[in-house]
């Protein structure tokens, strides 16, 4: 339910604008939180199974409902969640206690806010901002503050390393991400996400859907640069140097255990959802079906969006289990010397293309 519809419905009940606004925000925040939690549970299960299948093993398995971990191990994530909740809450003695406790929630806020603008279907979106794309990119930077806080407050050299590297990485990779997402904005002429998706309706040559990725070669390359920068934004391999397991134990998350770690985890997967959602909306046609004209109404929109999102998240997991990780200076080299020139050249090319071909 979008916040606007809720407020309109409250107006029919009576005239209390401030209270109705607050109620509408809270009521639409609850399904968002549920989406976040559900996404984390399913994504963790899928990640473990996918990684296992790629490594010739089976991952978490069970023999039936109620025994061990359920058939095919579906109850494993639920068991993990319960374990994390009942774990002992350790706060290091020499750490900065206030910052230590605040840090997970700041990262959580960054991911949660971004989720508010992701269009799950033509009607299912919490708020339809006029500047949706800009809002998501802006809000995505809040997470850095939390990461640096976590690294500093742990009073641990390993965490500090991880936090510093992560800060440099996320700030640098915002630039190619922003430059790549300019291409759909240039072509559609608007920052509003729903209008961006509506621009991609119809078809090209009758069979190919009119998605921005198929429009011209420059936007095809732009999709890949956006995707690579998105993977770097979320600290996933091959860019997971901040939480590099074999070098820094667990990087900036070393001192966190139990529920606080669960909050980090939740926000990492929510971040993946947000950037994949933006990629799908900007380049792959959002909730529109790949067969132009058919299956485009109502709940089908949700189905197409979820499947495209699922595919992109699967590709992110595929990357993680196949490639080794980059060293910090090589990461910076890729960002500043390879991705940024390519994206700038792309913008130039799309501009010329639109001028010539209209």
């Amino acid at each position, binding site marked *: 339910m979008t916040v606007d519809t809720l407020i309109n419905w409250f107006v029919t009940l009576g005239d209390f604008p401030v209270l109705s606004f607050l109620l509408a925000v809270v009521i639409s925040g609850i399904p968002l939180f549920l989406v976040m939690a559900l996404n984390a549970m399913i994504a963790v299960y899928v990640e473990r199974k996918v990684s296992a299948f790629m*490594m010739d093993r089976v991952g978490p398995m069970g023999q039936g409902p109620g025994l061990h971990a359920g058939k095919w191990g579906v109850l494993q994530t639920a068991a993990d969640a319960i374990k994390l909740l009942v774990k002992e809450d350790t706060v290091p003695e020499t750490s900065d206690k206030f910052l230590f406790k605040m840090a997970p929630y700041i990262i959580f806020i960054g991911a949660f806010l971004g989720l508010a603008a992701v269009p799950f279907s033509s009607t299912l979106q919490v708020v339809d901002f006029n500047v949706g794309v800009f809002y998501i990119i802006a809000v995505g930077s809040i997470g850095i503050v939390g990461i640096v806080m976590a690294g500093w407050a742990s009073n641990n050299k390993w965490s500090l390393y991880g936090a510093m590297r992560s800060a440099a990485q996320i700030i640098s990779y915002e630039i190619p991400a922003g430059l790549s997402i300019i291409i759909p904005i240039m072509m559609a002429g608007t920052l509003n996400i729903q209008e961006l998706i509506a621009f991609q309706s119809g078809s090209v040559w009758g069979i190919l859907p009119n998605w921005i990725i198929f429009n011209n070669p420059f936007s095809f390359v732009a999709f890949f640069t956006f995707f690579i920068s998105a993977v770097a934004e979320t600290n996933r391999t*091959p860019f997971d140097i901040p939480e590099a397991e*074999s*070098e820094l*134990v667990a990087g900036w998350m070393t001192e966190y255990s139990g529920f606080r770690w669960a909050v980090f985890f939740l926000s990492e997967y929510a971040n993946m959802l947000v950037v994949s959602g933006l990629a799908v909306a900007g380049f792959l046609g959002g909730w529109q079906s790949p067969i132009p004209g058919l299956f485009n109404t109502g709940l089908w929109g949700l189905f197409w969006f979820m499947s495209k999102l699922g595919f992109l998240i699967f590709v992110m997991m595929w990357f993680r*289990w196949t490639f*080794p990780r*980059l*060293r*910090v200076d090589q990461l910076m080299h890729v960002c500043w010397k390879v991705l940024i020139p390519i994206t700038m050249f792309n913008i130039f090319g799309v501009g010329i293309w639109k001028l010539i071909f209209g």
Partner: protein
Amino acid sequence: MGVVQGDQMILNIGPQHPSTHGVLRLEVMTDGEIVSQIRPHLGYLHRCFEKHSENVTYEQVIPFTDRCDYLASMNSNFGYVVAMEELMEIKVPERVEYIRVIMGELNRIGSHLLALGVYGLDIGAFTPFLYMLRDRERILDMFEYTCGARLLYNYMWIGGVSHDLPKDFETICTDFLDYFEPQIKEYNNLLSFNKIFVERTADVGVIPADVAVSYGVTGPNLRASGVKWDVRKDEPYSIYEKFDFDIPTGTGKFGTLGDCYDRYWVRMLEIKESIKILRQALKEIPSGDVHQALPKKIRPPKGSVYRRTESPRGDLGYYIVSDGTPVPFRVKMRSPAFTALSCLDEVSRGWMISDVIAILGSLDIVLGEIDR
């Protein structure tokens, strides 16, 4: 209060760490990311191997030698047994020599597979580790079929081996080799030629040939720096002279000569050479009685012997002093990984912490051998 250097940080890659290969403590002085000095602290795995061997008889030392280099324990047994047979002047039957070479080379493949897989894990690639371990399991299954144990065998005895090969061992081993050779291509496609891996390891941690020789580094680490030295060819023992195989050396394939990628690549090539030796040995193995030359009572004459053999990590040497009793007077093991670790400080000056992990992984150390 002493002088505090404002920009120097002492970082402890401690005994418990996911990628030091065993319990090793490295005290690293860095300024931010660039390393200026490393001090390794050893001794967390010291189990008094040499002191134990002064209190047990000669054949009871063999389970202890297994546990020093636990990833290549057939080769550790081999080294000890060859040294003892030189001291006691025992000539073992031909079949025993062939069996020992087969087991030694199979264990060399297993140890190299583990070293390469764990190196991939240090660099961040999780999947090749599992593939290599899956193939190593098949080698361990073959060992289990022959002598019952999977990791610590106690197989090579003074004067022979403990059990003869089972009847269908030749077929099983040849089937394994036929299955395994195409897998090497898969490993290369997945990890060795991967651009990210090459960028991480090429030109990193170069050990020039003269530095390597002056520190006493041996084995694949030395061969990767360009020096063609292998104990199997230069001071041959057992029946290695009968086999036709080359010694792969580093060529600076993707970077400079003697960098981490060369050490990785030399080990990959050595696996191929071991497969060659195995195929020749399996074809030519004669029949015979393996327990023929086992001495009734092991009482070597007074004297001492030092003999080197080639283990997957380098030059493994045993110095045995006997005084005529069934209990040795002194057994000393010269460990190749110890000298490899000693050159870590010089090689990693000026590199970053991620590179220190990469260099440590490429040296392929086993703490059991270093600390004994």
